[in-house]
């Protein structure tokens, strides 16, 4: 019995891990299709032109991060003390895709977060000036 429970425990851990890996793969697909050209595979962006995503203080505001993905960025922004004045167009992504790519950005290149962004959360973010 004890052995059985142990196996059950092991398999649930494996299951969670697989689940997480599947999700991460799905998250990355959105990034690779829509973001990677400018922000690059390692999230470092382009000096003076494209802000980095890796260790970016901008991402601490998850709501602002999602807002920028939904509606784009049309004025100057400051990331890690550096000012960038380059437009980012809205990408026309579905809410589930925006949740995916936000999760990817918040959990890659050493970035970590405690929250998992959901489609419903994205849905609730309305355009602000």
């Amino acid at each position, binding site marked *: 019995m004890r052995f059985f429970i142990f196996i059950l425990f092991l398999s649930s851990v494996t299951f969670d891990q697989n689940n997480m890996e599947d999700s991460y793969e799905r998250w990355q697909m959105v990034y690779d*299709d*829509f973001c*990677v*050209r400018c922000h*690059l*595979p390692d999230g470092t962006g*382009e000096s003076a*032109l494209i802000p980095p995503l890796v260790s970016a203080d901008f991402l601490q505001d998850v709501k602002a991060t999602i807002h920028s993905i939904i509606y784009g960025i*049309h004025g100057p922004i400051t990331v890690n003390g550096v000012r960038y004045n*380059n*437009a980012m*167009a*809205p*990408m*026309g*992504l579905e809410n589930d895709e925006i949740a995916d790519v936000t999760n990817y950005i918040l959990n890659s290149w050493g970035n970590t977060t405690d929250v998992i962004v959901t489609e419903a959360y994205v849905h609730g973010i309305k355009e602000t000036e």
Partner: protein
Amino acid sequence: MTTRYFSYVLLLQVIFACRQPDVTISTPDHTNYTIEVIVPDLETPWGMAFLPDNSLLITEKEGELIHFQNGQKTIIQNVPTTYVRGQGGLMGIAIHPNFKDNNIIYFTQSSSVDSDESGGNTALYRAVLQGNALQDISLLYKAEPNTKKGVHFGSRIVFDTDGYLYFTVGDRGNRDVNPQDLTKDGGKIYRLTVSGEIPTDNPFVDVSNAKTAVYSYGHRNPQGMTKHPVTGEIWTHEHGPKGGDEINIIQAGKNYGWPKITYGKNYTGTTITEDKALPGMEQPLYYWIPSIAPSGMAFVHNSAYADWDGSLVVGSLKFNYLERLTFDNNRVVFREKIANEIGRVRDVILGPDGFLYLAVENKGICKIVPNP
């Protein structure tokens, strides 16, 4: 002996094909022109076309067709619904060679029409511009299949001297399937008559199951195309991946090699192919490393800038300038930055007045005016 000699020549050829002289881009210390924003407050102006009355049609990627006349912007009605996603939107625009008599315009957009599949692909439309609205709208071509991929729609439109229409469709993010397969859309340059028919002398009309509108193939994402003002050749450029943006002169039926040959790498830096040249595939006239993310292309000819006549200008989305290139026997011999740090240059055209007009993202349409 003969074989050895032959291999030596072949080796030389391969080396020669893979090398181009290093022409570093220069940044002029001082400039003798001023940049005037003539159409302010645009988001992502993608394409421009002047009408005979010197008013300007502008496409906004988000789907608006704008007519700028006497300092006023008017939104043109009846534009078909745009599938706005990733790089896709309302994009290329051109007027009929005989617009002054028929008011016909052409435009490309990413679109979901003509298919039950979700997603979109590049569509070419023709319509009559009547007042502030489009009439008699007809779909001339719709690339298949629809896909939710957000990249590589191509979309420039140009007429050649004989009145044939050329337009571009990128590989739609499916490089291993589309560009080298003549039975599939994507990664191609297309050629149609003004009314949208397949010209009988198109190169692949006799190839079974081929997309017969195709004129050349093996392209990645051509977002610049223009007619050479003297030779009448159709010149294009296309985005490479990481490095390997190319300039090409388009010839009927030719294979431009993507992704079998390229001077670029994957975005991660890994190799796409070791081959930079292969038999039966065209070498670019020029390639950029690093990529400048070229968009828009025009020759400077009979222009307001005496020193620049004969140059080619290309917008750089990545580095926020207009690049000017000069040639000696179709070899690039000089490159310089114009309008440095202006913003993401999406399109450039030479107006009928001989001035260069730039479509700059998050800014608007800018005119380059030489200082007196």
